[in-house]
């Protein structure tokens, strides 16, 4: 079995030429070996299926997500899987298969809105806070640490109450879920970008830029930001999977999207809770499996990219040149190591614990 792979990082691609071979995911795919590649490919396939289903939902789904009857009359509640309803119908009389398929759209919409919002807000705050420092920086760090340490789901519940009062239309529901997830995610981007910014701003090239009279805005945009976003794609994938889980959690607690507005897996699972005792399995299994497979796919991609970006985890030979770095980002949302302990963000880009 191959031991260590050669280490062309995106920055040091051979000859500096940008071909399709150096595109982010393609590059990692070429870099990976053995099981690592298997995990990455599996993740990409699952994510691909998810995206495909979301985009072509209207063509794939046999019925509308809120359709209760067709030409032959009502569907009936809790009907067994049959040729008309491949996965049966729910207690509310919806077609399970259609709702699972339409659910991918809702999940994708929430992911896109949530990740975009938190990405821009978090990066901007982290950049400004790290670059200028001062009291604003200190306040933001304490605030973000406080939010970071708190259970994400509980905070999302509070925000969901604020935004939608608990009941929502399609757009309102998606926005409510997305924004409540955003609030929880901003600290993650903030911490990483801020730590990088603090490190980079003391580098010689920033000093040089200042000497030749570049404005703060230009330095931040051109010199700091470009160098501070190295690890963000990894957090991005992690947040995508967490967004799905939070959306489902909100739906399960009754703070998601109404069934007439959109299909949402968490809501369907909540409705199926009572079915389980009477042995009705098809209403819960399928939306649940959809959640698991989607999160699994995205997480596999994120983990593999993370491993490949970290030379210590990439190959066996190069492994473990010392203890893992202090700060780690865990899927459960807890911070590990000295970053939290001292109230200061960790070493730049240390999201190491996640990768393993």
């Amino acid at each position, binding site marked *: 079995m191959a031991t260590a792979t050669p280490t062309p990082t995106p920055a040091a691609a051979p000859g500096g030429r940008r071909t399709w071979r150096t595109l982010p995911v393609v590059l990692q795919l070429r870099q990976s070996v053995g099981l690592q590649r298997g995990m990455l490919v599996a993740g990409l396939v699952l994510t691909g299926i998810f995206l495909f289903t979301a985009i072509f939902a209207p063509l794939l789904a046999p019925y509308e997500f809120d359709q209760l009857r067709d030409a032959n009359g009502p569907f009936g509640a809790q009907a067994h899987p049959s040729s008309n309803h491949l996965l049966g119908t729910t207690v509310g009389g919806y077609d399970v298969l259609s709702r699972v398929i339409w659910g991918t759209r809702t999940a994708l919409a929430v992911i896109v809105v949530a990740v975009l919002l938190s990405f821009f807000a978090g990066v901007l705050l982290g950049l400004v806070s790290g670059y200028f420092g001062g009291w604003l920086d200190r306040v933001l760090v304490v605030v973000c640490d406080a939010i970071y340490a708190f259970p994400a789901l509980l905070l999302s*519940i509070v925000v969901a109450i604020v935004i939608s009062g608990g009941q929502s239309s399609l757009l309102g529901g998606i926005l409510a879920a997305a924004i409540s997830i955003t609030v929880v995610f901003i600290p993650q981007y903030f911490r990483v970008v801020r730590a990088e910014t603090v490190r980079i701003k003391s580098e010689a090239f920033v000093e040089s830029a200042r000497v030749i009279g570049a404005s703060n805005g230009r330095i931040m945009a051109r010199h700091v930001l470009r160098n501070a976003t190295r690890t963000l794609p990894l957090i991005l994938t992690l947040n995508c999977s967490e967004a799905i889980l939070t959306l489902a959690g909100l739906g*399960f607690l009754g703070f998601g999207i109404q069934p007439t507005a959109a299909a949402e897996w968490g809501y369907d699972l909540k409705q199926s809770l009572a079915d389980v005792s009477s042995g009705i399995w098809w209403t819960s299994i399928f939306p649940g499996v959809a959640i698991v497979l989607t999160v699994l796919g995205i997480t596999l991609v994120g983990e593999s990219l993370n491993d490949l970006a970290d030379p210590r985890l990439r190959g066996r030979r190069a492994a473990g040149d010392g203890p893992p770095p202090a700060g*780690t980002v865990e899927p459960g949302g807890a911070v590990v190591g000295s970053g939290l302990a001292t109230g200061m963000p960790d070493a730049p880009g240390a999201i190491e614990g996640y990768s393993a």
Partner: protein
Amino acid sequence: MTTTTTEPATGSTEPAAPAARRKNGGGLGSYLLIRFLLIFPTIFILVTTVFFLMRATGDPITAALGGRLPADQLQQRVHEAGYDRPLIAQYFSYLGDIAHGDFGTTLSDRRPVVDVLKTFGAASLELAVYSLLVAFIVGIPLGLVAAYKRDKGPDAGLRVFAILCYATPPFFSGLLLKLIFSVGLGWLPVAGRASTGTEIELSTLPNATNFYLIDAIRLGDSEAIKDVLQHAVLPSVTLGLLVAGIFLRLVRTNVIGTLGSGYVEAARSRGVAESRLLRKHAYRPALIPIITVIGLQIAALLGGAVLTETTFEWKGLGFQLAQYLTARDFVAVQGIVALLAVIVALTNFIVDIIAALIDPRVRY
């Protein structure tokens, strides 16, 4: 509960501080002091955030009863509760109440929130203890195996298992377990903390702890003990697996770190037996930091507990929170969330102390 946890926490700083001062000029003492002082802004920020977020939509009485009461009666209720005062005035009186340990009174059943914690806290604690136990038993050995078999089949399998633990929401894994073990095989009960007979029996116990296993043992009834344990299996596994995935990957990363370190290499070249090498040289130093990390899983545990308790009708804080959410009783929600913020801040502080005591590098 909040007051009882504060005291041992602050108490333990006292004896530790002078000892450290002798060695390295007050490193540990001042570190602990800073950590202790940081509790307050953390609680303050979370409580403030929750307060203003909840008030952004209007007052909780209108939210709960709006449309069900005539406008003038509603207005009177709002006035009585003081929700028509300026927001700032409400905010400061709220802060004052919290400083006195008053987290508000629920609207739907008119109970002080602290009282809700007293009644349902023990159930949540019981579930948390069992779940951590499951997480330990599953996560740590598997993490050791994954690290040792690094990049081989078992490692890949275990890593996918860890991701699955994380990717499966507790309400879905709970439903699956129910379908298989309760409905399908009929081995375990579907929901609840105990069967009705046992619950009545336990409620007769004078000054019950509400920690059902302890109560059942005090009762000395082996049937009750069995019943309580049977009810606990599925919820504990559901919540435990969620955390086990986190433990597994943490142990794996740490052990990979120590396995590649110079002193393991040195020991191996001296001819130390492989099993001894693993036990003494690789595993032990890797597990010490994990002990402290475990405390930080309280956030994951709390979030998961809300979902697990709802799935299994385990009548703890999380289940109660979900009930209040459905009843649109936002005073109760705000109170419970604020209370949990205090618990999270205190737990993190205690964990930091343990971390600093175990590992001198943390405190610098």
